[in-house]
């Protein structure tokens, strides 16, 4: 186990370096001469040739790409991701202030998704072929097909405008969390419900379940004591992955509900061509996602000894 953990953690280093390289190279995609762009963004008056030249020197923009990358990586490692063009605040500070809101919405969405998916998936598997199974299948199809950026408005129409139960947007009070989390969670619920169903069906076909039944255990005991635990193992892994996707999917949902998270920050930065902010976002979220996937792998290895003891290719790829 120790060896596995060590290898998995060490594998994060090259991946993180890759992410930093990606974030750095992306900023070079931006059109226009960087010095001119920066000069325009820093002062309201049109900059003179001299000012542009000064900025070019200050930011070392004439250096070779690898040199600039090394310098940028050095300051990034010290927590300096530059200054936002839009808010004139340090990028890392902005990301750190907005991240808790995103975490909150993603956690709430995950809770909603699991609360819908687990009972539905289990019920659909146990009553395979019944109307509940068909309804769950139809619901899963619907959940996977509705765009979140449309579902959001349907929910607003119903719960905020027609019924007036919940606020349309913003982050005032606990009620404001419900609609964004529901919007985000329903799609994931569909995926998880399908997975729970197929995973449980597979387990219910195993020999040990037949043995449990043949020794006269009730269906409830077969289900609760013997089948659920192995069936939920794959669901757990996918839940971890789904959490990463929820953090990513939160971007559009946050923008719709004016939820003050990093997603909303990203969209506003894109509208405002705030390149340091977009670059910082890629590095920051890339770091978060690699940490999450490492945590998922480790927790899975902790639960399932077969992975821990696998000799070949310990990393789940």
């Amino acid at each position: 186990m120790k060896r596995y953990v060590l290898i998995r953690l060490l594998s994060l280093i090259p991946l993180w370096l890759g992410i930093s390289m990606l974030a750095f190279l992306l900023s070079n995609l931006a059109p226009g001469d960087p010095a001119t762009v920066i000069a325009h963004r820093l002062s309201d008056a049109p900059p003179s040739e001299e000012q542009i030249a000064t900025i070019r020197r200050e930011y070392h923009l004439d250096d070779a790409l690898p040199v600039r990358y090394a310098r940028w990586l050095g300051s990034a490692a010290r927590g300096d991701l530059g200054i936002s063009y839009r808010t004139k605040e340090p990028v890392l500070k902005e990301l750190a202030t907005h991240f808790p809101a995103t975490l909150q919405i993603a956690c709430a969405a995950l809770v909603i998704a699991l609360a819908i998916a687990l009972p539905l998936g289990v019920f659909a598997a146990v009553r395979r072929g019944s109307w509940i199974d068909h309804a769950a299948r139809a619901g899963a199809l619907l959940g996977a097909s509705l765009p979140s950026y449309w579902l959001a408005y349907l929910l607003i129409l119903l719960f905020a405008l027609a019924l007036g139960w919940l606020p349309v947007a913003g982050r005032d009070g606990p009620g404001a969390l419900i609609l964004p989390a529901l919007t985000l969670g329903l799609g994931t619920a569909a995926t998880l419900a399908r997975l729970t169903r197929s995973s449980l069906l597979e387990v219910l076909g195993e020999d040990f379940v037949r043995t449990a039944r043949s020794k006269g255990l009730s269906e409830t005991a077969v289900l609760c004591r013997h089948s659920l635990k192995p069936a939920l193992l794959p669901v757990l892994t996918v839940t971890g992955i789904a959490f990463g996707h929820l953090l990513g999917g939160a971007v559009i949902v946050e923008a719709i509900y004016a939820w003050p998270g990093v997603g909303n920050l990203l969209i506003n930065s894109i509208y405002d061509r705030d390149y340091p902010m977009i670059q910082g976002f890629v590095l920051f979220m890339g770091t978060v996602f690699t940490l999450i996937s490492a945590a998922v792998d480790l927790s899975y290895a902790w639960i399932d000894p077969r992975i821990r003891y696998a000799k070949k290719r310990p990393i789940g790829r």
Partner: protein
Amino acid sequence: MNSKRRYLESVTPHAPFEIANEGDETISLVVVGRPGIFVRLLHDWAAIVGLAIVFLLVTLALSAPLLAPHDPAAQHLAERLKAPSLTFPLGTDNLGRCLLSRLLFGARLSLGFVGVASLLVLLVGVFVGAVSGYAGGFLDAVIMRVVDLVLAFPLLLLALAITGFVGAGIGSVLVGIVSVWWASYARIVRGLVLSLRERPFIEAARAGGVTPIRIITRHVIPNVIPPIVVLASLEMGSLLLAISGLNFLGLGVQPPTAEWGAMLNDGRPFLRSAPQLMIYPGLAISLAVMGFNLLGDGLRDALDPRLR
């Protein structure tokens, strides 16, 4: 999403050698194109519904100029936000434009972008994956690390950031989408190629002195195409969601272009007074995604009944 994962697990394995060792089961995936598939596809009602939806939408999109009662960009300012009538079957938007005509012409763009994006993603993914799998060694290692890197992010997020750097416009949306979506294809194609490389007919070609380029183009790629086309059909739904999503955010097509995602965006200020401006395009997107998903699931099941 889930269906894609199951499909991925079936063709891309944690170690590609697993496919190579599975022998006969691989053949069921790789050697396709026999009439059996279509027969099986037609026995699956969900797939038929999917096929019907996709066929219907594509037909509507192609015949939009014949069916649309108005020019999708023509503004009838006296007829703003009108309810459905004989002249405007679905009513008009805030500029008095015919909603039905905009939906029909929107279908051309929305579905057209999905087609173009799928094609580009396939080209890049198959080429990079085939090179990676066939070349092996250092090149393979580098390409696979890049794939790992891209797949470390949720796809839409990275596409969004790339589009953000390149600047708004439908071209940059396609750049953003393609430069992210190719990665999972490349990984799968590589796995397939690795397993193909050891198969007797490739060995025979190699022993017969056929050049590597010719082996890749004549023997490897034709065998990789069928499973990859299935994957592409599974992915079309999520591509439509992503492209329309970027258009919804205003990063793609610009007004007055009619595209479903952009129409949703245009309707936002009128959610309270005229919700139909958002209902119709949303319905259209959902219907198309559902059609793609049903069809993709059906194709996958028809090709590989084990996964059902």
